[in-house]
């Protein structure tokens, strides 16, 4: 596969050349089939939950250890968590993301969540095995090769230990977070993981509020990451869960909020419908704060290119992407990727759009 010429990509808003009816876009059989596939999952309503204030490692730039949430008490009562999950179901939540600081430290609580809410994902550093009885997707964070992980995360032999814990585990997706300093290591790590048959997706380091350290992306690093992502996707299409459009929107000089008007409560005062209405981010004491609610609280919104944020933000912008077949194909690839990365049992199809297209327009 030829890597698209990225110099042709303009960092500008783009208007469709003609007005397409939605029905005409869907008249393409491949588009129609993919649309019918992904729309079956429009019932997903997400919220996120910090499971523990503790972590077995400490990574530079970790958003969890920013802000007030790290100081809340831990509710370790399984029955309280069961009641929370039942209440969440009652208000329409169908998908849970168990995150900060390290959910693998509280497997009993994760199991209670799974018993009550069967769809979800756990974000973990992968150094502690999560029992198979918890059937959620497992996202294992990778921040470079083992030398870089030792330096940034203070843990030795991370990749080897992560692979050992989740070898041939169908729940596992390895999430490679690009920083300006680990771009050249991505191929080496992707090769290692691919040889193990592991699934890989990509994330972008998104600076916590006030962070101005070396991991914050620059225009040059964004461009280099985009090229690397697209190259790795072309090289490992069976193992890398991604699309060219994922690469474009997550490496754009404008962050996700500027590109798409983030609908999470933290940035969206409307409570009419969608994430602004239903999304909550629970702390370890089971409290939540609308003003801080998004999937990566205490991240600087203007620098947010986080994969979890994009999964909701870009996916929710169906209306904006239904402008022409090219843009809609790109959006369908993004949604197909999101579902494959986050939902157990969802199989990603081949990407429909192999070019590189800019987002349809920027936020007002």
């Amino acid at each position, binding site marked *: 596969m030829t890597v698209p010429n990225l110099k042709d990509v303009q960092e500008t808003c783009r208007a469709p050349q003609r007005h397409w009816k939605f029905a005409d876009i869907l008249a393409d059989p491949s588009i129609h089939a993919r649309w019918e596939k992904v729309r079956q999952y429009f019932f997903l309503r997400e919220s996120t939950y910090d499971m523990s204030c503790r972590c077995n490692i400490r990574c530079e730039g970790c958003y969890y250890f920013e802000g007030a949430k790290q100081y809340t008490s831990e509710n370790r009562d399984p029955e309280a968590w069961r009641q929370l999950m039942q209440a969440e179901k009652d208000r329409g939540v169908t998908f849970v993301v168990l995150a900060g600081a390290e959910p693998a430290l509280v497997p009993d609580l994760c199991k209670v969540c799974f018993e009550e809410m069967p769809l979800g994902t756990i974000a973990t550093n992968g150094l502690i095995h999560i029992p198979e009885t918890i059937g959620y997707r497992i996202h294992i964070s990778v921040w470079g090769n083992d030398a870089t992980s030792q330096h940034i995360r203070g843990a030795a032999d991370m990749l080897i230990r992560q692979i050992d814990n989740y070898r041939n585990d169908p729940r596992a997706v390895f999430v490679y977070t690009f920083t300006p300093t680990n771009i050249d290591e991505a191929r080496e790590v992707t090769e290692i993981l691919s040889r193990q048959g592991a699934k890989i997706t990509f994330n972008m380091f998104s600076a916590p509020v006030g962070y101005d350290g070396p991991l914050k992306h620059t225009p040059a690093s964004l461009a280099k990451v985009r090229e690397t992502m697209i190259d790795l996707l072309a090289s490992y299409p069976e193992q890398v869960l991604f699309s060219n459009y994922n690469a474009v929107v997550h490496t754009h000089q404008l962050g996700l909020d500027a590109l798409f008007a983030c609908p999470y409560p933290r940035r969206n005062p409307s409570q*009419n*419908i969608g994430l602004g209405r239903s999304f909550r981010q629970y702390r370890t004491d089971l409290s939540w704060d609308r003003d801080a609610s998004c999937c990566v609280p205490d991240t600087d919104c203007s620098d947010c290119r986080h994969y979890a944020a994009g999964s909701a933000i870009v996916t929710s912008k169906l*209306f904006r992407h239904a402008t022409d077949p090219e843009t809609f194909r790109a959006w369908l690839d993004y949604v197909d990727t999101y579902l494959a990365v986050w939902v157990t049992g969802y199989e990603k199809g081949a990407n429909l759009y192999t070019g590189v297209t800019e987002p349809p327009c920027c936020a007002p």
Partner: protein
Amino acid sequence: MSVETKESDIIVRVAEVMIEELKLEDVTPTSFEPDIDLVDEIGIDSMDLATVALVLQDHYGIRFDEDDYPTLTTVRKIAAYIAARLAS
């Protein structure tokens, strides 16, 4: 193709699209309560509403503003929005 322009006819058409696209059961276009809250009482989400808006755009040859459709949370509100667009 001529389209409905009377608000009462538009209400029926919106209900029809809603039932078809969201696969709603136990309701017909004429029995659909136009003031029922689609979010609170039927449980539709922004993706559902966007889908319905796209189909209605095609049918009426109008444009929904991306910022507007999330506020159209009843069939009557959607019909009034369409009627206003057709009249303008």
